[in-house]
């Protein structure tokens, strides 16, 4: 009797639990923070308490004598190499300190108590220098110079010009000119910073790290260590979140390495929560001056954007966010004439890194609220004005992003329809005139983001090796990192879909740079697209090899065979030709003809680097989203209650329903925090609220209902049509909320977060001033 294997339902689009979830729910997962290696020492950092000062002396003599102290690293006794995007950051500071997080010494000892004791005994003498904390102030001729070799305190600049903005301004019927002040927020990963460094006796380093870009990490770490990048092995144990915060090398990592080298023992260096707030990168704050013009009929004529980025003391990825800001400022709405100029300027503040959404959170806050302001100025409704200017499929942005499947107009239309937007919007405006304490608001915001990787390095590729064992299990060795986002589930799904095996028969190996092939890391919403393509292509190759062997054995031609339910079957009738595991063993143990199913794939997306004028189609695909917020405001207390967020996003294709919803909801929570409650308050360089009590992340009661509508337009270059999705959910909510707040109370806030205090001051400022 022939065995018939029914064609199973496709796995694509189904809710697949993360393979690592069971271990996580029982408390079994060993995070880096939980790790203990034999003879491991504990280490911490002595930080400065000044924001700008010359270091006159560092005295570690008393600290060294504390029982249990094994090694102390200072600038004087450690390698001198530099880290950071511009290589301007010495991990240990010897000549001067430039911001409050600066590192003076690393101390390693047998116990935390000994280390804490020694930290107190390190004596540092300083000569204070005048500080500067505002980017425009820091550009002035008489401003204190922060790095001797950076004249004018200038870090990075970006300039883009397209068309003729002065002519366009003359031709405009209306012109709006606005200033935005975008604030500091920080990642607050639940797993605080941690690293473990260990040398073998050949002098090769194994570093256990939270990094989300393991391969470039080696390259960026090596210059600080005086060793070759090739002698660094990066191991990525499970981490408690990353969200972009782990895309650079930060000083604590080389410091742990210096200590491990001195001690010839493994060293674990970790942060307290307070330190995590003070000494982790932030999102890049930005001051944005923007001018936009339009014709009476609502056609946008030009944009002129000038951005000042408060770079802080050193340059990490924060200074590069204009690369992403610009794409949103210049495109997705048709902007025929546009200039964008930005300056990242050194100050004595802590410095910014990358954070989910990159500069697009800031750019979208500006552009999406400006679109609303201009619609009102023109007497158009916010939907009509947006639709009038929305780019269409096939258009290119001024920077040459090709919008193959631009779904912006669809996103806007669907969002407006699902929420009955226009009716509610008009009713809320009318209600503002009537008495009442509680006001309802509805607002829309849209954006665009790269969704097929982003070629910011020479390679945007990912390598994958797929092997099959004798029992029909597939091991996928991928360069892609898992930081909680769920690429483990996505790859499992893609591979089991191609190979016709259960998801439980796919094993992912991806946390050791000595084993995994190259990948650029988790950023730019790239992993599902790039690593997904690599994994799927590898699975297709493996499948071809298996089917070829089955065809030889069965005399059925290869194009009539398929893999299904652990069998090789005839495609048309599902009749089993052989069991997969049996075939694999036969292939493997075939004497002189033996073959192992072991394939590799290196996927590099079809995208290009920007040229020096910032023109280039940097991503294989782009994605749009329109998010609509409904909320109410208590005009007495300034309290904002979010009712609902309706999110329409062009995702190409849903791969893992659970994963995509989780990314949407998690991103939205961070976006809500950006808009309403989160702000790292930094005064004269000092972080004022380094704890969860005063830095207010969103918690369960504040989460609104979330309704997602996914536009699935099957991106031709994506794995099963998928695009990258996970930054837009963090990018759009803040602006959407700001527009809803305006709809409710008629007040604009160009300086998020929109806190109750700001609302109350805006509504009752005169009374408050009188009382104060």
């Amino acid at each position, binding site marked *: 009797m022939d065995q018939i294997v029914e064609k199973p339902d496709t796995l694509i689009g189904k*809710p697949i*639990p*993360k393979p*690592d*979830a*069971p271990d*996580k*729910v*029982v*408390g*079994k*997962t*060993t*995070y880096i*923070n*939980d790790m203990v290696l034999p003879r491991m020492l504990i280490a911490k950092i002595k930080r400065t308490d000044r924001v700008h000062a010359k270091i006159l002396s560092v005295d570690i003599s008393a600290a060294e004598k504390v029982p249990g102290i094994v090694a102390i690293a200072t600038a004087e006794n450690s390698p001198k190499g530099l880290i950071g995007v511009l290589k301007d950051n010495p991990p240990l500071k010897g000549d001067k300190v430039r911001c409050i997080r600066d590192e003076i010494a690393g101390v390693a000892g047998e116990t935390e*108590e000994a280390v804490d004791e020694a930290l107190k005994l390190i004596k540092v003498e300083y000569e204070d220098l005048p500080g500067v904390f505002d980017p425009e102030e820091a550009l002035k001729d008489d401003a204190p110079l922060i790095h001797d070799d950076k004249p004018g305190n200038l870090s990075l600049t970006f300039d883009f010009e397209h068309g003729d903005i002065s002519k366009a301004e003359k031709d405009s019927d209306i012109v709006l000119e606005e200033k935005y002040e975008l604030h500091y927020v920080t*990642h*607050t*990963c*639940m*797993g*605080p910073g941690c690293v473990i460094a260990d040398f073998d006796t050949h002098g090769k380093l194994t570093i256990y790290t939270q990094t989300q870009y393991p391969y470039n990490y080696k390259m960026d770490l090596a210059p600080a260590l005086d060793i070759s990048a090739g002698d660094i092995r990066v191991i990525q144990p*499970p*981490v*408690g*979140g*990353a*969200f972009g915060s782990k895309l650079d090398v930060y000083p604590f990592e080389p410091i742990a390495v210096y200590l491990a080298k001195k001690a010839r023992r493994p060293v674990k260096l970790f942060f*307290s*929560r307070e330190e995590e707030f003070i000494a982790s990168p932030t999102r890049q704050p930005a001051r944005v001056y923007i001018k936009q013009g339009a014709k009476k009929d609502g056609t946008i004529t030009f944009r002129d954007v000038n951005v000042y980025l408060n770079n802080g003391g050193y340059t990490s990825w924060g200074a590069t966010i204009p690369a992403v800001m610009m794409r949103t400022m210049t495109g997705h709405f048709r902007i025929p004439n546009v200039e964008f100029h930005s300056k990242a300027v050194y100050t004595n503040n802590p410095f910014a890194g990358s954070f989910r959404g990159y500069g697009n959170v800031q750019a979208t806050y500006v552009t999406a609220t400006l679109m609303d302001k201009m619609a009102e100025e023109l007497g158009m409704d916010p939907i009509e004005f947006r639709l009038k200017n929305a780019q269409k499929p096939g258009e290119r942005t001024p920077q040459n992003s090709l919008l193959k499947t631009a779904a912006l107009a669809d996103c806007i239309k669907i969002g407006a329809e699902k929420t009955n937007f226009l009716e509610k919007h008009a009713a809320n405006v009318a209600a503002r005139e009537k008495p009442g304490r509680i006001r309802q608001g509805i607002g829309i915001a849209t954006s665009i983001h790269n969704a097929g990787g982003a070629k910011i390095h020479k390679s945007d590729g990912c390598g994958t090796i797929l092997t099959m064992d004798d029992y029909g299990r597939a091991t996928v060795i991928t360069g892609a990192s898992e*930081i*909680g*986002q*769920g690429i483990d589930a996505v790859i499992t799904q893609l591979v089991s879909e191609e190979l016709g095996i259960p998801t439980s028969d796919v094993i992912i190996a991806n946390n050791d740079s000595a084993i995994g092939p190259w990948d650029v890391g988790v950023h730019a919403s790239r992993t599902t697209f790039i690593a997904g393509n690599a994994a799927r292509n590898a699975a297709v190759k493996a499948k071809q090899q298996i089917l070829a062997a089955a065809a030889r054995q069965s005399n059925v031609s290869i194009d009539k065979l398929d893999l299904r339910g652990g069998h090789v079957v005839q495609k048309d009738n599902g009749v089993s030709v052989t069991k997969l595991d049996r075939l694999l063993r036969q292939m493997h143990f075939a004497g002189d003809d033996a073959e192992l199913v072991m394939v590799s794939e290196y996927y590099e997306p079809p995208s290009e680097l920007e040229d020096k004028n910032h023109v280039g189609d940097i991503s294989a695909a782009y994605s749009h989203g329109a998010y609509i917020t409904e909320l109410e405001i208590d005009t007495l207390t300034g309290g904002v209650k979010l009712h609902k967020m309706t999110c329409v996003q062009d995702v190409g294709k849903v791969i893992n329903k*659970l*994963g995509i*919803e*989780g990314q*949407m*909801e*998690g*991103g*939205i*929570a*961070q976006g809500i925090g950006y808009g309403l409650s989160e702000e790292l308050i930094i005064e004269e360089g000092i972080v004022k609220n380094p*704890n*969860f*009590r005063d830095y207010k*992340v*969103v*918690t*369960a*009661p504040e*989460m609104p209902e*979330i309704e997602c509508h996914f536009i699935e337009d099957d991106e031709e270059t994506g794995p099963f049509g998928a695009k990258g999705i996970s930054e837009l959910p963090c990018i759009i909510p803040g602006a959407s909320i700001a527009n809803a707040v305006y709809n409710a109370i008629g007040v604009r806030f160009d300086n998020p977060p929109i806190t109750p205090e700001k609302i109350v001051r805006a509504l009752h400022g005169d009374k408050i001033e009188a009382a104060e």
Partner: protein
Amino acid sequence: MSAKVDITFTVNGAVKQVSVPANMSALDMLRDQLDLKGAKEACGEGECGACTIIIDDTSVCSCLMYAADCDGRTIETIEGVQTEDGLDPIQQAFVEHGAVQCGYCTPGMVMQAKHMLNKNPNPTEGEIQRGLEGNVCRCTGYRKIIDAVAEVARS
């Protein structure tokens, strides 16, 4: 070094006798002395819930509690929730609903959810949200956690 205190208590059904420094937190004792590293220290100041355990019948932030105060009490940690028959329904629901991403908040969330359902087996959605108020999750946006708890409450 602070003076040591000898204490006896029950953790996940087993009686333990340990000697702890008087200033040690319950969380450090669990993690460092008993090797129960499920509970996490994500803030150490009672603001995030990652260290939540159940003591007698209340949920507490173990980072804020002295180890010495565990004397004579009954503690349940995340390691004690799973039974021989498999995952607890709450754990199962967290897995199936996608309530776990990085998972760092998860042990605390599960303990808090368990405690909440012990006290109130039929919470409304609002009660679930308020019940989880002290537990920060930076990854999930809470919706799936709320759904998971609601499903367990329903069944």
